[in-house]
């Protein structure tokens, strides 16, 4: 029987000033003249939350604690702070008193430089948001232009400084590498620039060309694979030399306390509510059945139209996919997983994957340690396995 894992909440804000050519997330440009339907959207989010939260708690005695909130997009920082204040206050009513301002609760907001008026930071902070994820991507103006970003490096620097002065001691910088025509030196310069702000957390990820994007149909001139590999190695070394620990494929933190709790919950195959247009959720119900997935209408207009009559809709993850989904997440982390954790989160005996794990260990792509006895066996991805994670995961398809 499947135990209920910790529960997080993801909130999606589906609008951007301009869609970036590499982005395959559910984001929609809104015309400069039109006003965002902020009030209606928050109302819809509240209704969405009500029905999904009720589903998540079905059969449990009392409610379920929400351990983290992530407001992503799109560009959530386009909304005013009071929108989030209203939403968070609404959610707080389902949680224990003092939830919203507790130390343990991580509430992240994605913010794009260029959409942020300095004044808003303090208001976001006051609404209970205690972590910012700032989409810097690069500190080189020419690169930012190629990536279709609306901000320049000056705005990026200013955004980081304002965040800090508004009291955000916990923030993340999103930084990309492998950008069109990027050199090794340029990629390192971007990291150096980011490091100069002493960020507690960095998401340093390689630009990937995804289907259904402008870059997919008109590919930019990307660096050669050998250069990409050199950048990866050099960047990793530079970050390590500066005290950053890679705890997931693309996530680095200087202090384990500053790892993203919300993202870690995904990577540990925890539960999450997904509300907002196009949001996905994963819920384990108290009935002990297979974990379920929820998803919402992608088009903001459809989502808003459907809102008054929301009822939670979910479908079980097919049994044969659960182990793969679990590994798809946990093997991305340095810590990997233990045998007990695997069984608790998937409800399947470890023996379903044991043989394949063993053969990947033989191939030097995974490793295991038996320090804590057989039941506590920890399986982790090796350095080599991190390079070829897709090859590792393919074994479990």
């Amino acid at each position, binding site marked *: 029987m499947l135990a209920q894992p910790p529960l997080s909440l993801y909130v999606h804000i589906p609008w951007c000033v301009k869609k970036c050519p590499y982005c395959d997330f559910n984001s929609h440009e809104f015309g400069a003249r039109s006003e965002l339907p902020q009030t209606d959207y928050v109302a819809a989010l509240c209704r969405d939350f009500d029905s999904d939260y009720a589903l998540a708690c079905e059969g449990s005695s009392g409610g379920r604690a929400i351990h983290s909130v992530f407001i992503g997009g799109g560009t959530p920082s386009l909304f005013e702070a009071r929108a989030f204040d209203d939403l968070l206050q609404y959610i707080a009513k389902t949680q224990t008193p003092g939830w919203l301002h507790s130390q343990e609760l991580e509430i992240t907001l994605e913010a794009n430089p260029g959409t942020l008026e300095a004044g808003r930071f303090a208001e976001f902070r006051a609404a209970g948001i205690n972590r910012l994820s700032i989409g810097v991507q690069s500190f080189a103006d020419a690169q930012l232009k190629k990536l279709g970003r609306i901000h320049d490096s000056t705005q990026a620097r200013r955004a980081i400084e304002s965040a800090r002065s508004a009291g955000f001691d916990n923030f993340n910088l999103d930084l990309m590498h492998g950008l069109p025509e990027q050199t090794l030196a340029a990629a390192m310069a971007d990291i150096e620039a980011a490091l100069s702000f002493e960020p507690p957390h960095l998401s340093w990820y390689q630009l990937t060309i995804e289907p259904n994007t402008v870059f997919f149909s008109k590919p930019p001139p990307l660096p050669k694979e050998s250069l*990409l590999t050199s950048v990866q190695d050099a960047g990793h070394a530079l970050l390590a030399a500066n005290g950053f620990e890679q705890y997931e494929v693309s996530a680095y933190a200087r202090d384990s306390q500053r790892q993203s709790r919300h993202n870690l919950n995904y990577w540990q195959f925890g539960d999450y509510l997904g509300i907002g247009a196009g949001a996905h959720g994963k819920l384990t119900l108290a009935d002990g059945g297979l974990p379920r997935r929820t998803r919402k209408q992608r088009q903001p207009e459809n989502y808003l139209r459907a809102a008054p009559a929301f009822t939670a809709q979910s479908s079980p993850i097919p049994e044969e996919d659960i182990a793969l989904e679990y590994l798809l997440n946990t093997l991305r982390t340095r810590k990997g997983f233990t045998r007990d954790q695997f069984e608790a989160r998937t409800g399947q005996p470890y023996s379903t994957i044991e043989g394949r794990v063993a053969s990947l260990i033989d191939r030097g792509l995974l490793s295991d340690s038996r320090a804590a006895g057989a039941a506590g066996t920890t399986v982790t991805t090796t350095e080599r396995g991190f390079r070829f994670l*897709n090859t590792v995961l393919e074994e479990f398809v």
Partner: protein
Amino acid sequence: MTDLSHIRNFSIIAHIDHGKSTLADRFIQHCGGLTQREMAEQILDNLDIERERGITIKAQSVTLYFDSKDGRRYQLNFIDTPGHVDFTYEVSRSLAACEGALLVVDAGQGVEAQSVATCYTAIEQGLEVLPVLNKMDLPQAEPERVKTEIEEIIGIDATDAVCASAKSGLGIEDILEEIVAKVPAPVGDRDAKLQALIIDSWFDNYLGVVSLVRVVAGRLKKGDKIIAKSLGKAHVVDSVGVFTPKRTETQSLAAGEVGFIVAGIKEILGAPVGDTLTLASTPEVEALAGFKRIKPQVYAGLFPVSSDDFEAFRDALSKLTLNDSSLQYEPENSDALGFGFRCGFLGMLHMEIIQERLEREYDLSLITTAPTVVYEVLMSNGDIVLVDSPSRLPPVASIEEMREPIVLANILVPHEHLGSVITLCVQKRGVQRDMQFVGKQVSLSYELPMNEVVLDFFDRLKSVSRGYASLDYQFLRFDKASLVRLDVMINGDRVDALALIVHRDHALGKGRALVEKMKELIPRQLYDVAIQAAIGGQIISRQTVKALRKNVTAKCYGGDITRKKKLLEKQKAGKKRMKQVGNVEVPQEAFLAVLKVDS
């Protein structure tokens, strides 16, 4: 039962795409064999693959009743013939059941080698050949030129050739009248002892083996106890009839007639094509001439990509042989590919068809090794060994002499491509025997080593002549040749399934080209992959597939899971068509890389 004088048995000789099937459909339509609704297009090509490729593999027949303008009603038995170079024996048996044949030639394209060869067989067997110019509705039709070609290349009078268009219906009735007027009626003593030719046999899931037969003498009735001369085992005839083209029981067939019989025979080998049927009570009746046991000309190893599929593969092969007695197979064990079968085919087309049917109808994923012909090896101790697989070649030290099969290839090609065709033949170690200019075409005869022909000759011939050259070939003899085994090694390990027997003079070039091609075909892996070609202990060529540097998805958050999963599934599906050889994933195409190299 129709009186002998009112029967006409005929075939159609035509090159692929020259319109045989469409013409046959017109005949059926004209004689009212089927209603419009039943007239599914091109009824005679039954298999999907036949329909797609526009070629006939199994012979079919149809009995039609034609009211001639002479006021009489004739029974016309049309016996279809397989239309490819690989099936010459089957063609000769179909022709043996006829007194006449239509030579259908595309009035725009002219005569092609395949038709010429079949036509010669027909003439040798004494058939009356009636030329028909088809596709007369097309603007590029040049009837006069094509008539000249028919006369000069084949040597039959084409003055009266019927101009027709199976597409528009032009000349259909004229052709039928020509058949009645010019094709001789069959002869045969209906009171003599039974003698019937098996034109073709196939397996029907409900009836067992169905044979198409031409009764040469006597009568064949339901309830008769019959034997096939070469086997002698008695069977009782359950049903007798004709195809109109629907299967219609008639109780009996008499000399001169063509129809089917079902006699409770369980295996197609129980009713071999070309064999003679007679009554069990008259075993002394003479066998008809021309019966041959079919021998495969080309061998290749077929292996399931997944070893779990071995049993399914065995079942599929045994089902296919129910209907195809020319397909032979025996288990083969490869170090690289595991358990599979060494299969013998009539030729390359036959091999492709079987492979396609196995993959399509039986959903198997297979690896085919490079096709090879049968070599004759004279051992030092005087023994002669036949070798149908490079990996079974005896040790060099014990070989006195190697002999390769030589074929006589007849090629017809338009003037403008003559040069490139000759170059190709020379490159393939051909020796010219004859060259004649006929109209716009040149008729070339070459002696060629069969292994050069079976590999990629036909494709190359088509490509150097822009599709215009046509080819027919037959086995001549074994010739002494300087042959060596070319081995391919992947990461230092000899891969038995990739070995080839090649001429010594070509070994170096072939080795280089092969290794280069394989480098293109083998995808990058986690390690460097070294591909080498070697003769004996000597490495003659090497290429390296550089290791993949990384293979990891940068971003993965809650909402992405489904997409990431799909990506992995796609990646995995790509690998399903690969075989693990040692540490290396080798795609199916790489095992046939030799077919794709120019040397």
